[in-house]
C-alpha cells in the first residue's frame, strides 16, 4: 500500500507535473504568440510605409524595365528591348568606365584623407571640438550649395584656385574645362564635402583603442608613425573595412557632382551611370530604359551589399 501510496502520489506528481509542464509550454507559446501579435500589430505602420514607399516602387521599377511607357497611357510589354537598347548605347561603356574612375579616384584620394585627418586630430589636446566642428561643417552644407561654391573655386578666369596657384607662378589650370582633369576635380570636391562623417567615425573608434597598447608600444621605443602603423591601424581595421564598403556603395551612385558641375562634359568625360539613367528618364522620356539600367545598377549594388554584410558578420565574430 505504502508502495502504492508512495507510487500514486509519485505518478500523480508526474502526471500533474507533466500537465503543469504542458500547461506552461502552452502558456509560453500563447504568450510568445501574444508577443508576436503585438509586435506584428506594431509593425503594420512600418510595413505600410515601407510597402508604399520602398517595396512597391522597387517592384514597379522592375516591371517598367520590361515595358515601354509614357506614364500616362497603358504601358506596353516589350520584353528585353530596354536592356538591348541600353547595351547598344555607346555611352553605357563610357558611363560605366567614368563611374569606376570616380570610385577609384575617390578611394585613392577620398578614402585615406579622413583617416589621416582623424589621426592628426586625435593628437590635439585642446579645443578638439572646434576641429571636429570644422571637419563636419561641409557635411551640413547642402550638396548643391557645395558644388556651386566649388564651381567658383574652379572658375578658370576668376576662380580661387587659379588665383592662389597664380601667386606662386602655377597655372592657370583648366579644372572642369578639360576632359583630363574634370573627373579629378569632381572627386576633390566630393572628398571635401563628404569626409566629415568619416572623420567623426574614425575619431570615435580611436577613442576606443586601449591606452595600454600605446603605452606598451611607447615602452618598446615605438615612435608616432610606428604607433599608428602597429597599434592604431590594426585596431581600426573593422571600421576601415566598413567605411571602405560604404564609400564604394555611395560613390558608385555619384550624381550631384557631374549633374551640377559639368552636366557630364566635357566630351562625356564625367557622364556617370546615374547621370545616364537621369538622361534616359528625364531628357529622353525613355522610362523603361532608365528603369532597366537602374535595375542593373541595383544588382551591382546588391552584390556589394552582400559583401558588406558578409564582411560585417565575419568582423563581428572576430
Amino acid at each position, binding site marked *: 500500500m505504502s508502495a502504492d501510496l508512495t507510487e500514486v502520489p509519485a505518478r500523480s506528481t508526474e502526471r500533474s507535473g507533466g500537465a503543469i509542464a504542458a500547461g506552461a509550454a502552452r502558456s509560453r507559446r500563447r504568450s510568445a504568440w*501574444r508577443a508576436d*501579435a*503585438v509586435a506584428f*500589430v506594431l509593425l*503594420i*505602420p512600418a510595413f*505600410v510605409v515601407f510597402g*508604399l514607399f520602398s517595396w512597391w516602387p522597387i517592384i514597379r521599377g522592375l516591371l517598367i524595365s520590361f515595358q515601354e511607357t*509614357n*506614364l*500616362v*497611357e497603358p504601358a506596353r510589354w516589350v520584353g528585353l528591348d530596354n536592356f538591348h*537598347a541600353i547595351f*547598344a*548605347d*555607346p*555611352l553605357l561603356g563610357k558611363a560605366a568606365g567614368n563611374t569606376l574612375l570616380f570610385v577609384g579616384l575617390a578611394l585613392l584620394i577620398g578614402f585615406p584623407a579622413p583617416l589621416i585627418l582623424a589621426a592628426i586630430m586625435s593628437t590635439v589636446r585642446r579645443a578638439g571640438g572646434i576641429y571636429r566642428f570644422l571637419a563636419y561643417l561641409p557635411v551640413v552644407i547642402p550638396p548643391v550649395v557645395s558644388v556651386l561654391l566649388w564651381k567658383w573655386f574652379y*572658375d*578658370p*578666369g576668376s576662380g580661387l584656385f587659379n588665383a592662389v596657384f597664380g601667386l606662386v607662378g602655377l597655372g*592657370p589650370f*583648366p579644372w*572642369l*574645362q*578639360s*576632359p583630363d582633369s574634370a573627373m579629378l576635380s569632381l572627386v576633390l570636391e566630393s572628398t571635401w564635402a563628404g569626409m566629415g562623417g568619416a572623420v567623426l567615425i574614425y575619431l570615435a573608434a580611436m577613442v576606443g583603442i586601449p591606452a595600454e597598447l600605446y603605452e606598451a608600444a611607447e615602452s618598446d621605443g615605438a615612435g608616432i608613425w610606428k604607433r599608428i602603423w602597429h597599434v592604431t591601424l590594426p585596431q581600426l581595421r573593422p571600421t576601415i573595412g566598413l567605411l571602405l564598403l560604404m564609400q564604394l556603395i555611395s560613390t558608385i551612385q555619384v550624381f550631384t557632382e557631374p549633374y551640377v558641375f*559639368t*552636366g*557630364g*562634359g*566635357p*566630351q*562625356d568625360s564625367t557622364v556617370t551611370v546615374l547621370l545616364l539613367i*537621369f*538622361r534616359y*528618364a*528625364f*531628357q*529622353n*522620356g525613355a*522610362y523603361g530604359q532608365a528603369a532597366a539600367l537602374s535595375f542593373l545598377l541595383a544588382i551591382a549594388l546588391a552584390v556589394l551589399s552582400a559583401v558588406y554584410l558578409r564582411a560585417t558578420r565575419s568582423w563581428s565574430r572576430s
Partner: protein
Amino acid sequence: MRTTRRSALALFGGAAVAALTGCDSLKPTSDGTGDTIVLRVQGMPPATEKASLDQFAKLVADFEKANPGIKIEGSTNVWDSMTFSAKLAGGSIEDVISVPLTEPQGLIERKQVSSITGDLRGWNHYQEFNPQVLKPISDAAGEVYGVPEAPFALGLVYNRALFAQAGLDPDKPPTTWADVQAYAKQIAAKTGKPGYVQESKDNQGGWQLTMITYAHGGSMERLDNGKYVADFNSAPTKSALNLLKTMRWTDDSLGRNLLNNQNDVIKAFAAGQVGMFLGTPGTYRLAKVTYGMTNTGDYGIGAMPQAGGNATLSGGKIYMVPASVSAAKRAAAVKWLLFAYAQPQYDPAVAAANAKALAADPKAAVGVPTLPLFNQAQQDKITAAIQPYVNVELPHFAPYLTGTPALALRAEPAVQAQAIYAALDTAIQAVLTDRNADVDALLAKAESDVNAKLAAAQK
C-alpha cells in the same frame, strides 16, 4: 484582452486602409465631373514679383466672373524635367503647364500632352493664329498642342557697352557669322572679356548648334523612306563647328568658361561679362528680373546672324495641357488659355490694361517685343496700345525687330530632338576643349549614335 487586441488590429488595419485610400485625397484637384471645375494652372508669378502677381490675381477674378463654373488655382511651379514625369505619373501635375519651346516636340512625341485643336476651334479668331508660331507646337498631322505666351525667334543678344568699349557700333550688331567672329575677336582683344559665349551642356549646346546650322542652311533631320534620319553630318554643321573651333583656338574669343548652360550665360551677361550670345528677347526679362542686371541700357539684340541659311529657330514659353487631364478640364483649360494668353495678344485694350498694371513695378519688364501671335497688323495695334507703359529700351531691340521678319522660322527637330542635342553637346564640348578635335569624326560619331536612337524610336 482578446477584444482589445482585435480592436487594436482593427484600428491599425483601418488606419492602413485609410492611409492607402487616403492617397486619393492627396490629389489636389477635383476630376472635373462636379458642378465646379477646379483648374490648377502654372504661370502664377512668385510673390517677389508683386505687380505681376496682382495682375495675375485680377486675371483670375475676371476669368472666374466670366466663367462661373470654373475655379482657377494658380501655381508658381515652373517646368522642371526632374519632377515632371513623377508628377504626371502621380496625377499631381497641374492641369495647365508652362514649358520652354525646347520641350513641346518631345512631349507630343511621347504623348504626354493633349491636342487642344478641337477646343481651340471654337474661338472666333482661331483661323487668325500665325501659322509659323503654331508650327513648333503642332504635330505632323497639324494638331495643335499649346498656346504660346510670348513667341520669339532666336537672335543674337549683345552687350552694347562692351561693343562701344571695343570700338564697335552698338546700333549695328553683326548680321553674318563672319561678322560675329570678327566682332568677338575685337571685343575679347579690347575688353578682355569673352566676345561670344556658346552654350555647351544640358543639351543646350546641341540646341544652339541647331540654330547655327539653320543659319548656315543646314538641317538636323531629314526624311528617308518615310523615316527620320540624322542630317547634320553635312557642310553647314561642319562649317558651324569649324567656326567655333577657330574662334576658340585661333581667335581666343570665347573665354575660358566653356561648359555653360543658358542660366550660366545669362547670369554672366547680366554681370557685364559676355559680349554676345544666342538668345531671345525674353532673355532681357531674365537678365533684369532674375539675375538683377542693373544697366539694362547695355542690353541689345539683333536678328540671328546668317551664313546662307536665311533662317532661325523659334522659341518662347508655351502653355500645354497634360494628357492625363480629363476632357471637361481640358475644355476649361483652353478657355483659360484663350482668356489669359491669346486674348491679351489679340485685343489691344486688354494688352494695354495688362501693361499698365505691370508697369506699376519698376522691376518688371514691360514691352519686351514678341513675334505676332496672330498677324503683323494686329501686333502693330497692340504695340501702339501698350506704348505708354513700356519700360524696356525699345530702340535696342530694333535690329532684332527689323532683321527677324526676313528670316524663315524653323522648328526643332521633329523626332528625338533631345537625343540629337545630347550627341551634339559632346561634339561642341570637344571643339571647345580639345585643340585637335576632328570635326568630321565628331559629327560622324554623333550621326551614328543619333541614327541608332532614331531607328529605335521609329520602329
